[in-house]
């Protein structure tokens, strides 16, 4: 399938890259179809790209890059929506927010994007551990 993307223009994506978000993403509740794309930065960074609107793409990152002990704590409802059978099928990402000064870049630890990689289902959940921040500095000591 060909889609228009923010980072790469029009590209071919495979079924394996497609994710269905039943509830959309907070603030984008009517967007249900996304694809997961590698970034040029590689490693723990990915693009979560809307299939419908090229301009809507989130940079996401493995939160353990920032907090190595980060652990997903979520409700049975969320795990049910994600149709989780085995813990190892789950991928957890934080959305990255970049400001005018990139040094202030933050990641959302409180509202992670959770993906069931076997069933291609995604959901933005709210962590039951509310000590996590919505805007946690990406690089220690650089955020505000």
């Amino acid at each position, binding site marked *: 399938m060909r889609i228009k993307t923010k980072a790469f223009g029009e590209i071919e994506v495979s079924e394996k890259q497609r994710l269905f978000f039943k509830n959309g993403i907070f603030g984008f509740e009517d967007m249900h179809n996304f694809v997961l794309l590698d970034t040029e*930065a590689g490693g723990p960074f990915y693009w979560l790209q809307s299939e419908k609107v090229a301009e809507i793409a989130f940079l996401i990152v493995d939160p353990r890059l920032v907090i190595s002990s980060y652990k997903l704590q979520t409700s049975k409802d969320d795990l049910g929506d994600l149709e989780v059978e085995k813990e190892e099928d789950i991928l957890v990402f934080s959305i990255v927010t*970049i400001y005018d000064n990139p040094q202030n870049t933050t990641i959302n630890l409180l509202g992670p994007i959770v993906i069931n990689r076997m069933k291609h289902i995604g959901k933005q959940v709210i962590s039951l551990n509310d000590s996590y921040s919505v805007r946690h500095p990406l690089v220690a000591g650089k955020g505000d």
Partner: protein
Amino acid sequence: MLILARKENQSIMIGDNIELTIVSIKGDHVKVGINAPNDVKVFRKEIFEEIQKANIEAANVKPDVLKDIGNLFKKN
């Protein structure tokens, strides 16, 4: 919306195992205690709004910032 009047130390049950208690009322400040199973989500509504706002800002990301992000890590 169901509206119930409650006094201090009075409670409301939601379903069989969620209990809301009005712990104290001081001026315009109401403290609410919530007893619910661990896997029931209980959040201040502001949290949803904060996440929505952060998402909307995050969606504006420009692809060329990836270079800057890479640089942040190189310096460390």
